[in-house]
């Protein structure tokens, strides 16, 4: 029997994770993280989600605590998210939350408290390979979350459990129904937890940084008009570029915040042969050679090759990756590393 701390968001995956850990005979304690004090929808830390997590813990007859990581969340997730937009980058706050809050602050506290493992409801697997522990895709392709966990090293993984990684989402829900867990039918959380559907990203960011009007030009430099907030434009974006009739086939292909300029072009103009990367995290040692590459949380993979300087060379020209986005490398189901597009 091990002592396991289960991070319970209030959703069905973490509820089932706690149930499974208990079923396996572990000494299980639940914890919900209070991360964001501002308004929010059903994110991962609203009071109603804490209520759901607590009720599930009561059902499972396990202890449940709430840890307040509000200041850490603001420092490591919200502020960098705002700063990234100010710099014209496309950040992924879920990854920063995993990196700094769940798998750093929480895990290190769990160690101090004498827990053997921390379990979460992520759809991902931890595989034993001849070169040590590796992160792998969850068995449910549609729900796989290995992309947002790419920063986990073998050492991190030795302290972690992802009990639902071996299950499909429908199996998770079925098990939750079977056990009568109250979150069995709760919808999956969507989008960024600290931005509400009603307020939206624009309003959130405009409260926190100055948004600037920008010129929209085509690839030849011809003036096409202006847009309200250059900080909110992402490479590949089609909507909201104020282009009237041609909007359907026109994409933002380059965003230049300091010069307040957005270049738009055709799908062809959006293609690129290579992605420049920085801040690599490797599962083992740096890898050179062919890999499958994923550039968004639920995006498809594309074939590429890691070069000696750590960039991705696409096999077939690929849509540009917005600077700030995470790029994760796979061989089969195994994550071999990841980095940030620059």
């Amino acid at each position: 029997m091990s002592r396991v701390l289960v991070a319970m968001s209030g959703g069905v995956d973490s509820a089932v994770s706690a149930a499974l850990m208990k079923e396996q005979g572990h000494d299980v304690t639940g914890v919900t993280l209070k991360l964001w004090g501002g308004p929010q929808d059903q994110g991962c830390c609203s009071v109603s989600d804490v209520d759901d997590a607590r009720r599930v813990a009561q059902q499972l007859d396990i202890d449940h605590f709430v840890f307040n990581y509000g200041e850490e969340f603001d420092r490591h997730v919200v502020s960098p998210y705002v700063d990234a937009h100010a710099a014209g980058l496309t950040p992924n706050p879920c990854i920063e939350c995993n990196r700094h809050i769940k798998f750093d602050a929480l895990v290190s506290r769990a160690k101090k408290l004498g827990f053997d493992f921390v379990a979460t409801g992520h759809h991902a697997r931890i595989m034993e390979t001849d070169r040590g522990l590796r992160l792998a895709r969850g068995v449910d392709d549609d729900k796989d979350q290995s992309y947002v966990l790419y920063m986990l090293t073998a050492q991190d993984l030795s302290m972690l459990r992802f009990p639902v990684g071996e299950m499909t989402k429908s199996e998770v829900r079925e098990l939750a129904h079977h056990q009568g867990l109250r979150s069995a039918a709760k919808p999956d959380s969507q989008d960024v937890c600290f931005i509400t559907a009603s307020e939206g990203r624009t309003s959130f960011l405009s409260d926190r940084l100055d948004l600037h009007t920008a010129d929209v030009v085509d690839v030849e430099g011809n003036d096409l008009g202006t847009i309200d907030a250059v900080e909110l434009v992402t490479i590949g974006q089609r909507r909201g570029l104020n282009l009237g009739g041609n909007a359907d086939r026109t994409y933002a292909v380059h965003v230049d915040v300091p010069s307040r300029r957005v270049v738009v072009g055709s799908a062809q103009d959006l293609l690129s042969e290579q992605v420049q990367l920085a801040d690599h995290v490797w599962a083992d040692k740096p890898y050179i050679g062919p890999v499958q590459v994923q550039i968004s949380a639920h995006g498809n993979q594309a074939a590429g090759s890691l070069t000696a300087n750590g960039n991705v060379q696409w096999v077939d020209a690929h849509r540009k990756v917005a600077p700030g986005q995470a790029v994760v490398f796979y061989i089969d189901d195994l994550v071999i590393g990841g980095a940030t597009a620059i």
Partner: protein
Amino acid sequence: METAKLDRPVYLDCAASTPIRPVVLDAMMPYLTEHFGNPSGGHRMARSSRAAIDDAREVCATLLGFGPHEIVFTSGGTESDNLAIHGVCNLNGIAVCPETEHHAVLYPVESHNGRLVGVTSNGDIDLEHLEAVLDEDVSVVSVMLVNNESGRIIDLDAVAEVRDRCAPQALLHTDAVQAVNWLDIVNAARRADMMSLSGHKFGAPKGIGLLAVRNQVAVVPQILGGGQEAERRSGTHNTAGIVALGAALQCLDESRESEIARLGGLSERLASALTAAIPGCFETISQSERAAGILQIVIEDVESEALLVLLERHGVMASAAASCASGAMDPSHVLAAMGMERTVAAGSLRLSLGWCTEDWEVEHAVEAIPRCVEQLRGAS
């Protein structure tokens, strides 16, 4: 010693709540069973409830230094605080309080063009600052007699003196929710125009409290209805709760002096043992300036949120700063107001004693707390 074989948990969180005293439970029980009549009614069964309330009202009034008509029974401390502040501030009224008040005072004050008064590094109200914010526009000044987090005692006479000089029209309210356990309340609150109490902090159940209001003070009711409590607080009387409140206050009055000596000794034992055993551990308020049974310590390089989890595993129930609605710990606004760095304040621990506290609990805590701290520090 983890999850040691204890008959019951070591409970050092009496400032959060206390168990009902058995004698209080006995006193209230008939009013939960046979004497259930609505005290506002006209028949015999109503009258028996009414008589119990009248008795309790007299007991409370006498023991608090007020008259029977000056007692307004409420649902607890938060309602009393809200009634005191909202009830005497009109639309343009200005309310004043120290930054270290409980949120049940702080938020109502802020809603009335609130002016907040700073405190010194040892938690005392900054009287010069108070003097500076008081003027003829101020309707009410609210100052807690004993702080719920730090245990700091405030000299209300000194506050009243400044009020008299700088804003004689302003009413003085005190939240005495903690103080009633630790001070000669009649004397300590003699200058207060209004005073809030909450039953569950001294052996009565949750859901009952009172606001004592001097006769010359008109409070505008915040809950309208049947006109109970002389039109100051409507709603069917909580007869059993009111009876319990009177009985608990009676017990408290009879035992206060000896309990202050007993629990003060235990608290001192905790303070000296913990500060000696744990490097980087200190009291936020010194013994002479705090309530006998509320000890707040700060432990450097320790997060109290983690410490509390570990302490629970060792059978010790305590708390840190105030909890928010989700159950998470919020950073202490009291320690922040006292000028303590947030990172230091994050290591605060409140050990509060009460009528139910026994010697062995303190001895257990004196053993357990340093070991838990060592574990947290050792693993970092």
